[in-house]
């Protein structure tokens, strides 16, 4: 039974990966990646990593992929790109060759280690292996520093993304007001703003 499930999930994961790389429309590539992530979550379940599988589905296939879909819709990648440029054919051939070489090398490196545990189904497990309770306890005891640094990293990334993607004064349309302008001129309120500014129009300016 486990073999059947493994091969189904592994084929799904590899097919999702191939689809992500080969589909021209970025929107379909994102959907293929969602399929890949779901199949990978099944593989995690087979390895008794219940919490990792749940986090994979909820955080990755849920939240992160929604972010991708929003950006694809915003940027409008629906036109599709040509897969190869002017120097494309030889570069593509070299890339595929490199991919095959990398796969062979990784397989030799992983399988050729001679670790005896790799030919087995793994060590005998306690009943709590991979449960959310165990994960939470480890995060608050053994991995507390990593946990706190991860929270700090998420905060920095969120602030950085907002600063990168905000509208800058002078780059956009004339009527745009950046956050910095509003902070610098606190006397401008909704009632007395000059016509054409974003405060007056009470909405984002039209492109």
């Amino acid at each position, binding site marked *: 039974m486990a073999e059947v499930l493994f091969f189904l999930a592994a084929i799904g994961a590899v097919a999702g990966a191939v689809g*992500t*790389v080969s589909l021209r429309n970025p929107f379909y590539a994102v959907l293929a990646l969602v399929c890949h992530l779901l199949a990978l979550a099944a*593989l995690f379940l087979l390895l008794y*990593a219940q919490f990792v599988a749940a986090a994979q589905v909820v955080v990755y296939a849920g939240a992160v992929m929604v972010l991708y879909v929003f950006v694809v819709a915003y940027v409008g990648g629906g036109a599709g790109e040509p897969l190869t440029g002017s120097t494309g054919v030889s570069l593509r051939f070299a890339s595929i060759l490199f991919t*095959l070489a990398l796969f062979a090398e990784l397989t030799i490196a992983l399988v050729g280690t001679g670790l005896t545990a790799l030919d087995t189904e793994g060590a005998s497990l306690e009943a709590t292996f991979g449960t959310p309770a165990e994960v939470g306890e480890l995060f608050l005891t053994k991995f507390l520093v990593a946990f706190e640094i991860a929270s700090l990293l998420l905060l920095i990334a969120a602030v950085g993304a907002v*600063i990168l993607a905000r509208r800058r004064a002078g780059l956009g349309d004339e009527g745009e007001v950046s956050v910095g302008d509003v902070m610098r001129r606190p006397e401008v309120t909704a009632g007395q703003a000059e016509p054409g500014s974003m405060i007056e129009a009470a909405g984002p300016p039209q492109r």
Partner: protein
Amino acid sequence: MSLTWYLVASALIFSIGAGGVLVRRNPLVILLCIELMLNAANLALVAFSRAHGNMDGQMFALIVMVVAACEVAVGLGLIVALFRRRLPIDVDELRELSG
């Protein structure tokens, strides 16, 4: 089910992701391929965690997921900034650091 199979699947997914980074030109799809590689690493980590019967690999995989989420946030912010400045969304065209 021998754990070697999981590692081979992980190596295959990683290679596909690396090939995608080389072949594709849309930065959005390149970010997706980086996600593929991170997920392949996660699969290997969880498989080794199972081999040892030790939870440390799974914790590592969770931290990798956090880092991947940060990378996605910053990368997508960069792509939105590119789009706002009406630059081409194509890594072959974006060869200079100065805008």
